[in-house]
């Protein structure tokens, strides 16, 4: 084993580029990734970039009305109260709905994490709203919670109310539909995160003298927090892009005039593709801002337990 031989073998290795690439993970296996990447570039990145380009080609009418040349669409978006208000309307719907779904799911997931008769049956039933879909939920809500529906009829006949409640074709109707589609999702996610927490940790806290509240606040909640943040984001994404129910059980020209609806109207009714793309892209921007804030808050509050998807 002399220095000469080892130097020789070293220099040989530096000559092999292929090997050094393989060392860093660049090898023939990567070809398997190519179809998916090409696909994403063609059907996601390209249209997206094209859409962004479109936003800078406003229609002549928009330019005349709002000025600003290339940026007319954006000026219109921010200055046209009819359009810009829908940012607020969307948030007013999506944030409370997502928060409600997550917050209500926590105690329920906690109480129901033990084994009891019919648990599997209940969890299977929770999948049912998925088979309904948004359009169907809307139709059902219109019938069930409408002025002559069973709900109002029951409440009136038992004397709880004297006049039928207005539960659909307004903000409440959309909120209900967001809960019906979002709650099972939030519950199933949170209970699976909860089952990932080692029960012996709580047992350990118990032996150290922590009571129920302390155990929840000091041990379980911090461990659950990243999962809650993820669940919140996913339910928020669902609620934020609400579209059919806002039209069907909401008040499409008033309280539930959400961004998705505005974008669609510009697209198919006004045939203003550039304005439609502007609204659509601003919608994505607003959503990503909210997600970013949640992520920041998560890493700020729970430095210890974050990392990975959580």
């Amino acid at each position, binding site marked *: 084993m002399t220095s000469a031989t080892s130097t020789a073998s070293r220099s040989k290795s530096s000559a092999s580029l292929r090997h050094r690439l393989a060392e860093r993970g660049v*090898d023939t296996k990567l070809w398997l990734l190519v179809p998916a*990447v090409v696909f994403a570039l063609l059907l996601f990145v390209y249209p997206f970039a094209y859409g962004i380009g479109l936003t800078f080609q406003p229609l002549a009418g928009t330019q005349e009305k709002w000025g600003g040349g290339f940026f007319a669409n954006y000026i219109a978006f921010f200055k046209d109260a009819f359009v810009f208000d829908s940012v607020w309307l969307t948030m007013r719907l999506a944030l409370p709905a997502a928060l409600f779904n997550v917050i209500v799911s926590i105690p329920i997931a906690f109480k129901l994490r033990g084994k009891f008769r019919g648990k599997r049956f209940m969890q299977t039933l929770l999948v049912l709203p998925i*088979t309904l879909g948004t359009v169907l939920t809307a139709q*059902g809500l219109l019938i069930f919670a409408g002025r002559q529906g069973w709900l109002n009829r029951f409440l009136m006949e038992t004397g709880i109310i004297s006049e039928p409640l207005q539960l659909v074709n307004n903000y409440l109707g959309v909120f*209900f539909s967001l809960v019906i589609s979002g709650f099972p999702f939030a519950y199933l996610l949170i209970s699976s995160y909860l089952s990932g927490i080692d029960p012996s940790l709580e047992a350990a806290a118990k032996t150290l003298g922590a009571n129920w509240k302390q155990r929840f606040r000091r041990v379980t909640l911090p461990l659950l927090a990243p999962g809650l943040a993820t669940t919140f984001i996913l339910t928020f994404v669902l609620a934020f892009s609400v579209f059919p129910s806002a039209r069907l059980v909401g008040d499409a020209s008033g309280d539930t005039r959400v961004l998705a609806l505005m974008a669609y109207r510009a697209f198919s009714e006004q045939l203003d593709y550039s304005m439609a793309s502007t609204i659509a892209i601003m919608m994505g921007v607003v959503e990503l801002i909210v997600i970013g804030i949640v992520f920041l808050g998560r890493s700020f509050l729970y430095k210890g337990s974050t990392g990975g998807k959580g």
Partner: protein
Amino acid sequence: MSNSTLKSTRPGRNAPPTEIVNIRNRNKSSLAPGEKSLVASPGTWFVWFGVAAFFIFLFGIVISVLVDSFGKPWFDTWLPENFTLGWYQEAWNRFDLSHIIGVTLLVAFAVIVVSVVIGVPASYVLARSRFPGKNLVMLLFLLPILIPPITFGIPLATVMYNFGLGRTVLAVILVNLVPSVPFVIITMTPFIEQINPSIENAARMCGANMWQVFTKVLAPLLVPGILAASILVLVRTVGMFDLTFLVSGPTSDTLVVAIYRAMTSAGGGEARQLISSMGVIYTAMMLVILIIALRFINPTQLVAQVKESRED
């Protein structure tokens, strides 16, 4: 509490449907003596009230639609005066439902096949290799799931119309692939990570080449995962409204879109019962698909089996 303790017990991100086992274990330890007294708290009432309210709404919705679809006239009463099957017949003929259901199934099937063929190899690479730019690729696959469908749907639809694909079945398939391929990739990655790489090495040491490793070892092990991902893609695609709606036309509408169009068509929409009967058909179709799919596999069981033999 130290960082490492927390890290090691972080909720398992790859633990999807195997939670039943965990619940059983936990139950033993958490129901210690003294715990009982806490159970009858107001919290419990809240929980049961919440669950009950949810199910009342859920069943109210489902049964309302069901009853409505059979009701002759149903206005100001608890139940309709008469029952009939006529609405189904009318809906079937009026909206050409056999064509619409055919389109729906064709789209769903095509989306599943293409997204599995494209997505599974990609998720294999993402689960097994580290390479420069991996995070960028991950982001590329996460974004279509994370941002609202309308946000990329409108530019995508514009491009489709530019290429003359507007209102075709092909366009419907293509737009549905955009979230489905990433979805398959992201659901399959944990499944692949669960398979110990030494099983692949063992196959190679037995003389199997890369292709044989894939077909003889990985594919059978991944069948449960692929089926699970396929079911989810199927449910998402059949239920996908936003994207389909943007590019579909009369001959390429899927069932959800057809129902929406019937509900919102000019002149106050179609008769409510017609829509309800279509809704029942939709839900029935979804349920049949799910039941058939679940008959073929029990994802929980198969995943647990793979895991078990890897752990010991």
